[in-house]
């Protein structure tokens, strides 16, 4: 396998890991006069833990006080509003409800409410049964109270990764994909990272490698934390249930997990999950019948109107949980090596605040931070054709006929948008899918897969049998070996 992107010989900062945290850090650093590269082993940014994130921007009253998680959660929540706006990331503050089934749980809600007051999270209110049923009539009648937090939001996590990385690249960050780091050597004036096809020397390395962060740390001889891989399964429900709940519904939290939630996603589908099961295999992205049963049971306890027949798709993600149960962010005894590890929930929420903190830690390693004199403003993705009115659709299609040709009928995605996504960095079927929604609808790619493959082949110049679903060995088709034809041409 060969890395994609030009490997710079020397950089000021190498960010290892292109999940939402690494992308946010690279973008934050791109606003200064620094040479930065962002490195990921996968074929696209956000293809690890981030892709399977529940997509919630938490209000900041759930995490325990005195933790890094708790400190960065609310700060991140506040930064997402302007950030999503600037980068055109789907984000909406739908609010959340944490619900109680009995008096013990009401006491927990009361504790969370006090925590919200301490952290100055505004607008958090305890609702009684009648108020709850007025606001969310489809909740279980057995729920006796709910804690409402208006500042909780839903976001498209993969969109966040793509936009952050794109903005970073526009401002000079080198993006290296399909590039697993296999070694880090301490060299004079920095660290040398061994990649599949070369070496990058960096003055500072930020270890944001998610599930691989302990292995990256070990490459410089450190062992400052331990990671547990915690798998979560999520189930997407048919759009017919849109509006079943308007806010994210949480059960009362337990010490290990925020529990199984009912989430009205930004795209209007209801998602239920996740589970939280520790797994030995960090690549274990399997869904299980136990997981499905558990999620459905838990979700139906909150919202009885959900039925198993409503599931249209399922997936699993694995998050990296530090055994300290908190984020591991800080400098280490190896000069130039900074850890940003163990970023479990609320990592997505905290990401912009983590990036700010990481930027300070990079500066403390002796790099001067002078603001980039001429930052390149972000060029937002055009509004999806499905969200345009007829007249605007017509204008766009007459300006460029590719915006008149529909590729994905379920989600109304045009060839113009698919080609746009490829020009903005998608190289795989999943890369196009997560940027455009082509293939995410009810036929799950049955009718658009070929058209997307054609567009990928046309834009990248690669034959269709060299295309993949999501990089690596995820090939899609084989060329027919026809002895008659081969014989005739050789």
């Amino acid at each position, binding site marked *: 396998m060969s890395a994609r992107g030009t490997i710079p010989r020397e950089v000021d900062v190498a960010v290892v890991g292109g999940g939402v945290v690494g992308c946010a850090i690279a973008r934050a650093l791109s606003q200064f006069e620094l040479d930065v590269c962002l490195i990921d082993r996968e074929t696209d940014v956000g293809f690890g833990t981030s892709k399977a994130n529940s997509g919630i921007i938490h209000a900041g009253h759930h995490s325990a006080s005195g933790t890094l998680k708790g400190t960065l959660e609310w700060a991140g929540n506040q930064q997402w509003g302007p950030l999503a706006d600037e980068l055109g990331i789907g984000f909406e503050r739908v609010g959340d409800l944490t619900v109680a089934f009995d008096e013990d749980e009401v006491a927990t809600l009361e504790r969370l409410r006090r925590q919200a007051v301490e952290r100055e999270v505004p607008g958090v209110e305890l609702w009684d049964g009648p108020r709850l049923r007025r606001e969310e009539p489809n909740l279980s009648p057995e729920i006796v109270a709910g804690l409402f937090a208006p500042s909780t939001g839903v976001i498209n996590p993969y969109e966040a990764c793509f936009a952050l990385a794109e903005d970073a690249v526009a401002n000079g960050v080198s993006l290296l994909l399909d590039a697993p780091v296999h070694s880090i050597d301490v060299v004079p004036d920095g660290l040398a990272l061994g990649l599949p096809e070369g070496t990058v020397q960096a003055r500072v390395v930020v270890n944001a490698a998610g599930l691989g962060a302990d292995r990256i740390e070990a490459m410089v001889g450190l062992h400052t934390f331990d990671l547990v891989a915690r798998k979560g399964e999520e189930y*997407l429900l048919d759009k017919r249930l849109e509006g079943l709940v308007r806010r994210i519904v949480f059960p009362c939290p337990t010490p290990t997990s925020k529990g199984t939630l009912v989430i009205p996603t930004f795209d209007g589908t209801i998602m239920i999950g996740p589970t939280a099961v520790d797994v030995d295999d960090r*690549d274990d*992205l*399997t*869904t*299980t*019948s136990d*997981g*499905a049963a558990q999620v459905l049971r838990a979700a139906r306890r909150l919202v009885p109107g959900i039925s*198993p027949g409503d*599931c*249209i*798709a*399922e*997936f699993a993600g694995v998050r990296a949980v530090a055994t300290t149960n908190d984020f591991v962010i800080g400098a280490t005894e190896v000069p130039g090596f900074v850890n940003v590890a163990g970023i479990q929930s609320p990592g997505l929420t905290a990401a912009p605040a983590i990036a700010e903190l990481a930027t300070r830690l990079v500066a403390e390693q002796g790099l001067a931070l002078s603001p980039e004199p001429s930052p390149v403003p972000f060029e937002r993705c055009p509004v999806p054709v499905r969200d345009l009115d*007829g*007249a*605007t*659709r*017509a*204008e766009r*299609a*007459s300006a460029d*006929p*590719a915006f*008149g*040709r*529909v590729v994905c*009928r*379920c989600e*109304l995605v*045009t*060839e113009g948008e698919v080609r746009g996504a490829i020009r903005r960095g998608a190289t795989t*079927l999943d890369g196009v899918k997560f940027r455009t929604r082509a293939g995410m609808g*009810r*036929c*799950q*790619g*049955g*009718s658009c*897969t*070929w058209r997307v493959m054609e567009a990928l082949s046309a834009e990248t110049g690669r034959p*269709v*049998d060299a295309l*993949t*679903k*999501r*990089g*690596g*060995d*995820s*090939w*899609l*088709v*084989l*060329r*027919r070996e026809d002895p008659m034809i081969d014989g005739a041409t050789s």
Partner: protein
Amino acid sequence: MSASRPARPRRVYDVAVVGAGPAGMAAAAGARQAGAERVLLVDREPETGGILNQCIHSGFGLHHFGEELTGPEFAQRAFAEMVDDGLDVLTDSFVVDRDADDELSVMSAEHGVLRVAAGAIVLASGARERTRGAIRIPGSRPAGVMTAGLAQHLVNVRGLLPGRRAVILGSGDIGLIMARRLTLEGIEVAGVFELLAHANGLTRNIVECLDDFDIPLHLSTTVVEVHGRDRVEGVTVAPVGPGLEPLLDRARFVPCDTVLLSIGLLPEAELARSLGARIDPVTRGPVVSSTMETTRPGVFAAGNSVHIHDLVDFVVEEAQLAGRSAAAHVLGGSAPRDNVTLVPGENVRYCVPHTISTDREHTVYLRVRRPLERSWLRLGDAYEKRLRYVVPAEMVTVKVRPRFLEGFSSEALRVDVVPREEG
């Protein structure tokens, strides 16, 4: 945004037909024959013919053309027979929805967004395949799990191979056809696995596609896990018990790099739904009258977008009726309204049409729930007919003649298919 936008092009038709597969072509022809002058046939693909274009096997047209044709041959003949010069054909064009002015909005590279005003619409948008998500197969999500129809497109239209060793889940006709097709392409088919105790495809396909090629069919067996990180590496299969629950102690691993799903078709009824037509929860297509009119006046439907057919010949028959009815709706002279609702009774999953009229003859299509060797088809107390072997996979066709219902005065007619003792 400028105040003076360029006006979107607009066209006016008597009848607009959505989808140019066999149903759409037949509906357009029916509308023309019944006197509609301005008829539009629109399809999202670059060619007319619909799914027939990728069905390169033979077996089409025995009823309609009196000979056995391949899918593309059927499509070509149907086009020649049904599509005349008076018909406008728009390909590479997608009907998005109907706007506030009751006009269809049609997107294409050629015309941008075209507005189409039509006196009547025939929906002939066919079906889509059920996907993995619909049956929640546990396991990983590697490349190589695809619907049988997508594999058919890749092999037959694009000349590509989906993999080297395939497992087929579900015994629908497309899966059976693809088992043979893959074998002919040198791909090893490890087996066809069917959850139910009986096959879902036509008997002739079991014989000609599996038996003749020594491809094993495992009934009452299903895939319980998909393996592989990047690409499929195999599946775990297990027999199922009487309640269809997998018997995991008898599970086994089957190595393969491809899993084809042939687990059923669903009518593509999104446009019907968005137009406000009532949808039958059993067929998942629109409820239709004996003239193939949906519950939205002026909106007709035919073919697999109404219910899933086994044979294209019946699609054509049904669609010609829909086209004629659409023309009559515009030109006047509609048939008397239906006065009897068909109620699926014992061992009947559904009947199409949903209603009939006692004044004329109808062809009623129905599907049974379970196989029966010998049975009676009963229309209430009014009529009964001997049926031979019935299976869910094969549609039952009944001619209902006015004389059957002479003296019948109720509004609901129960349809049963019940066991018949030999006597």
